[in-house]
């Protein structure tokens, strides 16, 4: 019987050592957190792929201590809302104006006008200063321009499902969880607003969307929208602006961009400070720094973004500039989109994706 206890003891020891490591690690960072209460917790969906580390390093040079939390767009949004009554984050950035508008509606943001706000186009600024714009994002169809000539490429989303040659040769979103896939949907629906239709969209448009999803191909696992295109699995796919220079370099492919007659959806990524009992000065200072032309310029050069700060626009990656010239922003009533997206997506999930 002694053996059993020996084993028990050893395994207990093993686990407590493991546990000890864990406690020490988390304990350490926890104590750091309290001893220097100037630490800023930043929630963002724009810090993956090394962007977070870059942000931390740059911020450190300016004396900011950051705890960066990397979450996908929707996870981030839902998490912020779940923590509404006890926010953990000090600052959040990267979500688009629609998501921020919802946070504002729920009274979760604290008003602040950053110092750089006069460098930004006035039309983009929230009138209550609850959040401030950082960079533009666009979503559009893409094709492999080595395989398809520009004049042969399709001109509109509807060409995808009206042209029988393309059946199963274009990628459609598998789920509607992300901002990009949402944009793919509303850019098509918004041309057919109809107060009498289902969820304020005409029946014909719902029909078309149904065809769009039915005739498309879905991604297999281990594949991205752009990789499936680069592979030759499909002819058309979709992506977002800042992704273009990154994937072109990584996958060694030259992408063509489709600009429908009505344009492409353009959203603006924002930054906001969360409402807490005590909003720290350092949060404000951090926001003041995050939007400066100095940092936005570096960020744009490295990660392909399109900052709205006019002084930083000279640093925009030349390829991104090209794509911006090739596409025109679609005229969309974003508050209408924002009010309807949840219902639209739900309808698609229940009745179209089948």
């Amino acid at each position: 019987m002694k053996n059993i206890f020996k084993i028990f003891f050893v395994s207990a020891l093993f686990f407590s050592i493991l546990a000890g490591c864990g406690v020490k690690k988390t304990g350490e960072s926890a104590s750091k957190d309290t001893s220097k209460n100037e630490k800023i917790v930043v929630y963002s969906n724009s810090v993956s792929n090394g962007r977070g580390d870059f942000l931390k390093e740059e911020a450190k040079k300016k004396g900011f201590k950051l705890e960066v939390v990397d979450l996908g767009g929707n996870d981030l949004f839902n998490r912020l809302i779940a923590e509404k009554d006890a926010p953990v984050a000090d600052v959040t950035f990267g979500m688009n104006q629609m998501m921020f508008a919802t946070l504002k509606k729920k009274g979760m943001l604290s008003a602040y006008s950053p110092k750089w706000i006069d460098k930004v186009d006035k039309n983009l600024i929230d009138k209550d200063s609850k959040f401030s714009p950082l960079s533009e994002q666009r979503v559009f169809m893409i094709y492999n321009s080595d395989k398809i000539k520009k004049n042969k490429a399709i001109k509109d989303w509807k060409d995808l499902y009206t042209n029988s040659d393309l059946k199963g040769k274009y990628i459609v979103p598998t789920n509607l969880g992300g901002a990009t896939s949402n944009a793919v949907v509303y850019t098509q629906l918004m041309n057919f607003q109809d107060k009498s239709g289902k969820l304020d969209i005409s029946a014909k448009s719902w029909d078309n969307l149904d065809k769009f999803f039915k005739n498309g191909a879905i991604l297999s696992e281990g594949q991205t929208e752009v990789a499936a295109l680069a592979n030759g699995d499909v002819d058309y796919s979709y992506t977002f602006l800042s992704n273009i220079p990154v994937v072109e370099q990584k996958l060694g492919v030259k992408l063509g961009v489709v600009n429908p007659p009505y344009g492409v959806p353009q959203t603006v990524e924002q930054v906001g400070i969360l409402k807490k009992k005590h909003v720290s000065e350092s949060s404000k200072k951090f926001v003041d720094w995050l939007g400066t032309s100095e940092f936005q310029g570096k960020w744009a050069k490295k990660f392909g973004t399109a900052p709205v700060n006019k002084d930083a626009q000279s640093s925009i990656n030349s390829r991104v500039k090209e794509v911006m010239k090739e596409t025109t922003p679609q005229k969309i009533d974003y508050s209408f989109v924002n009010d309807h997206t949840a219902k639209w997506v739900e309808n698609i999930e229940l009745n179209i994706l089948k």
Partner: protein
Amino acid sequence: MIRLKRFNLGMFLFVAAFLWFILAFVVVPNFSIIKSVFFSADGVSTERLQAIVSSQRAVRGIKNSFLLAVTLPVTTTIIGILEVLFLEYFDIKGRKLLKVAYMIPLVFGGVMLANGYMFTYGSRGFITTSLLTIFPHMNPAWFRGYGAVLFLMSFACTSTYMIFFRNAFTNIDYQTIEAARGLGSSDFKILFKVVFPTLKPIFLTCTILLFQTGLMAMAAPLMIGGRDFETISPLILTFTQRPSSRTLAAVLSFFLGLMQLVLLYIIQRNERKGNFLSISKVKTTIKRVHIHSKPLNLLSHLTAYLFAFINAIPLIVVLLFSFTDYQTISSRHITLKSFSLENYQLILTSDTAYRPFVTSVFYATAASIIVVLMMMVIARFIFKYRNRFSTILEMLIHIPWVFPGLMFALGLVMTYSHPHAIVFNNVLTGSLVIMLIAYVVVLMPKTFRFLKASYYGVDQSLEDAAKILGAKPLYSYIKIVLPIILPTVLAMLAINFNGKLSDYDLSVFLYNPIAKPVGVVIRSNSSSESGIEGIALNFVYSVLLMAINSLVFFFVYADGKNTIKNLFNGRKTKNES
């Protein structure tokens, strides 16, 4: 009330504390999310139920989940039992190798397993490409739909059989088998009439678990079921994540919960009818039998090796791809040049990539120990005192099976985001402890079932003997009962640890920014927004996770095995070690 005498104060306090735990962390959060969903500002809405019933997709999802839940226990039981028989009952050559192969599902599961199968049997997988050279006209996307999901899950879910069933099987009194043989029974008659009936509690627990796994299946249907075979869990996940659609998620979960409750009820009734004692008092270990019929022998060998092959291939594929770059992963063309250590270097040298591992190991360890200790006492309590109170308590423990983890996590966050009297006016949201609580809660039902089943394996007369000899209850528990259930305890520790090591669904709502678990990192890597490198890194993450899982199993489970050996061989091994 005569029973009260046997109640000791310690047990009473423990049960009281446990009731508080259940109330605070199971009942209240689930209740509050249901309340917020069904009785919102707009009042009770039946329109939502309408939306589900009129959606073809949702209705088909429910049907598919049910189909999988009913068929999975059958197929897995067949495969699982055959595997156990190949290892422990029939004499098969190359047993050691088979054992390793059959153990693979223990450490290799979830998304990565589905990925492995996809990369093996999928349209560009290597099995498919080699089949295509033989049959050029076959459909490259043949590995899809219900059949594929069932195939994958049947093999992946054999882990419960490999641990618990095998463990109970080797504990069978071999003399009963010999007696039956002496009376002229055939090998197969012995299996069905003598061996299997004594394993009933384990059977039942495995069935419940498999039914539940089939019902809640997420990764496999999502990735290889495709549009032909969609199940309900992915739908629930999508709906839970969007605040405005949570009613739908709640409605769907109720369908699942209902099916579960019916099954649990049936099983519980069945259990009351009594169980056979499954542990031998006299230590005669089982002897493997040689199959005398030549064709049957050949067939068993072939099947045994085929099973091992099916288990091993996807793992090898994942291992291979973890050493390649993202171009190779997306094109699936492996050449000698595509191998590199870059991915590993990136993860092992970066502090931000390394920290999530430590966090997850800590949380999984703590949760697994807490829940096993807790359930050891509670299962013992329920096993000993059969009355209305213990029946209700048992039902309360099963609540986490009825509500999807995601919804429970949400309830937890929302309920405790402001001071609440039941947790002494603390705010738990955003704290370090909330995720630990959630892990413990969702691990409860499974742990409880297995430990309870293992108490059935303890011969009451042994305890009675100890009592007559004057041993105190705690002493006889530690000296008599614990050694018998120890293999299950250790296995539960390992299984719980491995199960929560890469958890995503719960963690994403609950983790504290300073302690980010590895599951969340993996998921955010696989979203297309995070770019193409993420997919390559995920292969590395899963290989590392597998390594940790295997280590834990090797350590904990191997020791569990030694314990059994010590038990059975008595003094001899003791002196050796």
